[in-house]
């Protein structure tokens, strides 16, 4: 039926080419569009990633000095955080480099309303999966961090001695007062923990923490250059020298112009994807708008007094949890915690918590068998040595050994090192 042949269509004259050929040519258009798009998607990031800018050579020493000297006070940007510790329910304290064994228990203990807006539980979410943060800072007095969620946002605003946390999901605002100078008192945790945790989310402080840990146990080198968030950066490569460490390498990309660490990547020795990857996806060193740091609780929002809430929570949960609260670094922990001991140094430090009277509830639960014990059995693998026997819990970065008498050995070291430590303690 020539009448219906496509060649008859008006306004579509195409010379004397055969319909078949014309068809092929036309179908080539969508294929070409898709191909170009795929090529762009595939190649642009590859080019962006391989782009190592030409920068003057710099020694590791100078680079570290550059970081230390860096006095960038004002910045705003977007930070991408992805953590893959190998166990989604792992407490987040470990991500920050501390021995936050108690955090998980603490989180569970606070199962009361308003907790969803409490900074601690929210920041814990950062310990697994991928998150986007928007950060802005203007000097040490004004900071803002927002966790960008799907159709929700969690904001922490620090301005002077006021700290506001706002959770859009529950429309709740938590207000706390930051300390002026004092470190002690019952309200120690919130004001201390808040700005501390807040800063942990930026690459700067993670990098700083790592540099502090460096010593004769660590090799620090400059390993080429990279482009991060559109800025030229040096790459600082940090590798533990101690074989027992589970940390493979840490890479810190440092802005070549102003020494601000832009990206922090921690790769476990076992290989695979980075266990912790925190980096700016875009950054701007101009002064952020002032109204970013002013927060007035919106009308209709539930306002919780964070200081008061914390005080009651502590009363309820008694001393046990108070100890956990002040988790700041290993030193604080050691002081607060009677049974805690740190063996070894550098990367292979192992924290030991003496059982029974200690704070880790799992130690006791497990000893009393029952369902909890069975559950733990399914998680941990049974090990034994001259110390007796116990269970080994392992993740990609941190391993923990809980012996049958309740002593806990935790560290970013391989399992053998934990068993040795337990044997040695015997």
């Amino acid at each position: 039926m020539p009448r219906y042949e496509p060649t008859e269509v008006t306004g579509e004259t195409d010379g004397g080419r055969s319909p078949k050929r014309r068809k092929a040519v036309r179908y080539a258009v969508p294929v070409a569009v898709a191909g170009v798009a795929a090529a762009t998607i595939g190649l642009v990031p590859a080019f962006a990633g391989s782009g190592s800018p030409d920068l003057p050579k710099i020694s590791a020493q100078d680079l570290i000095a550059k970081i230390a000297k860096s006095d960038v006070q004002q910045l705003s940007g977007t930070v991408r955080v992805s953590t893959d510790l190998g166990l989604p329910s792992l407490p987040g304290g470990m991500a920050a480099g501390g021995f936050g064994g108690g955090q998980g228990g603490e989180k569970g203990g606070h199962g009361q309303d308003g907790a969803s807006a409490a900074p601690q539980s929210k920041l814990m979410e950062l310990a697994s999966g991928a998150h986007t943060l928007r950060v802005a800072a203007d000097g040490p007095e004004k900071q803002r961090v927002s966790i960008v969620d799907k159709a929700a946002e969690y904001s922490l605003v620090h301005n002077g001695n006021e700290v506001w946390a706002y959770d859009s999901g529950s429309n709740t605002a938590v207000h706390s007062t930051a300390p002026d100078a004092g470190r002690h008192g019952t309200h120690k945790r919130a004001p201390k923990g808040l700005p501390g945790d807040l800063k942990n989310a930026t690459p700067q402080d993670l990098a700083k923490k790592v540099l502090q840990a460096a010593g004769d146990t660590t090799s620090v080198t400059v390993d080429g250059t990279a482009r991060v968030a559109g800025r030229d950066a040096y790459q600082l490569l940090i590798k533990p020298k101690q074989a027992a460490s589970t940390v493979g390498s840490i890479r810190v990309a440092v802005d070549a112009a102003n020494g601000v660490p832009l990206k922090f990547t921690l790769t476990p020795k076992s290989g695979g994807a980075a266990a912790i990857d925190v980096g700016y996806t875009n950054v701007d060193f101009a002064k952020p708008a002032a109204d970013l740091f002013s927060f007035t609780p919106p009308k209709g929002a539930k306002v919780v007094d964070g200081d008061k809430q914390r005080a009651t929570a502590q009363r309820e949960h008694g001393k046990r949890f108070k100890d956990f609260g002040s988790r700041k670094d290993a030193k604080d922990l050691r002081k607060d915690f009677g049974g805690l001991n740190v063996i070894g140094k550098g990367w292979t430090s192992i924290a030991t918590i003496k059982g029974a009277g200690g704070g880790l509830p799992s130690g006791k639960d497990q000893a009393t068998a029952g369902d909890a014990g069975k559950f733990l059995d399914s998680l941990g693998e049974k090990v034994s040595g001259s110390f007796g026997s116990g269970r080994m819990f392992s993740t990609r970065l941190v391993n923990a050994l809980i012996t049958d008498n309740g002593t806990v050995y935790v560290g970013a070291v391989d399992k053998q090192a934990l068993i040795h430590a337990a044997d040695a303690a015997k």
Partner: protein
Amino acid sequence: MSQAEGVLRRPRPLWSLGLLRSEITTTFRRWRTLALLAVLAGVPVLVGIAVKIETGDGGPGGGGGQGGPAFISQVTHNGLFLVFTSLAVTLPFFLPMSIGVIAGDSLAGEAHGGTLRYLLVAPAGRTRLLLVKYATTLTFCLVATLVVALSALATGALLFPLGEVTLLSGTSISFGEGLLRALAIAVVVALSLIGLAAVGLFVSTLTSSGIAAMATTVGLLITVQILDTIPQLSAVQPYLFPHYWLSFADLLRDPVYWDQLQKNLGLQALYAAVFGSAAWARFTTRDITA
């Protein structure tokens, strides 16, 4: 005189506007279209009444932020949030489903009814007819979204107080600015659907059965939505057209977070280009026998 020119081989652009107008009138006069719009308008009413009943006796407690669609805890404080909630509720399924019906039906329905060849008798050309059909579908996207938004606004204004709008970042803006943001969100939601509209149009050129085209488009939508939730496929997901749909909420952050919005619009444009040109390739080379 425009009629005289209409007979010429190269009709003026005005002519295709006329074609577009008649297409739009035909589409919106169909009972099927009106029923779809009525269903869409009903969703916000249902959501609004449900929230009202739920919080009616318990006071404006907000009822916990966990679970439920986005923004629902805010609805009791501000009726405008019903617009955002309704769009978040309808965007994953109701809206795209109705787009799938309209887009799938656009050409295949004509072919099925035997009217396609009469349309082609007019000296408009197939490319132009295809563009007009696509434009009609896009108009429906916008109208459908606005119907949801307006119905939600009306319900929200009737059942709940209106006033200052609290953004996701905790900042308050005036009601007028809130309305503007709501309008912007409606437009973004409508734009989020252009990728699916192009897919539907392409499917519609493949078959002569309107029902088959609709079913395929809606089936495809559901499949892709399911794929988008499987964590193992996270490498592919950024390229699935519904992946960034809920990014419209980013317009409610204090400095608006453009990243995902841009990705969404770019992705939709890409789908429109690929499937639009595929539809063109198919439609202009196909034998129209019905």
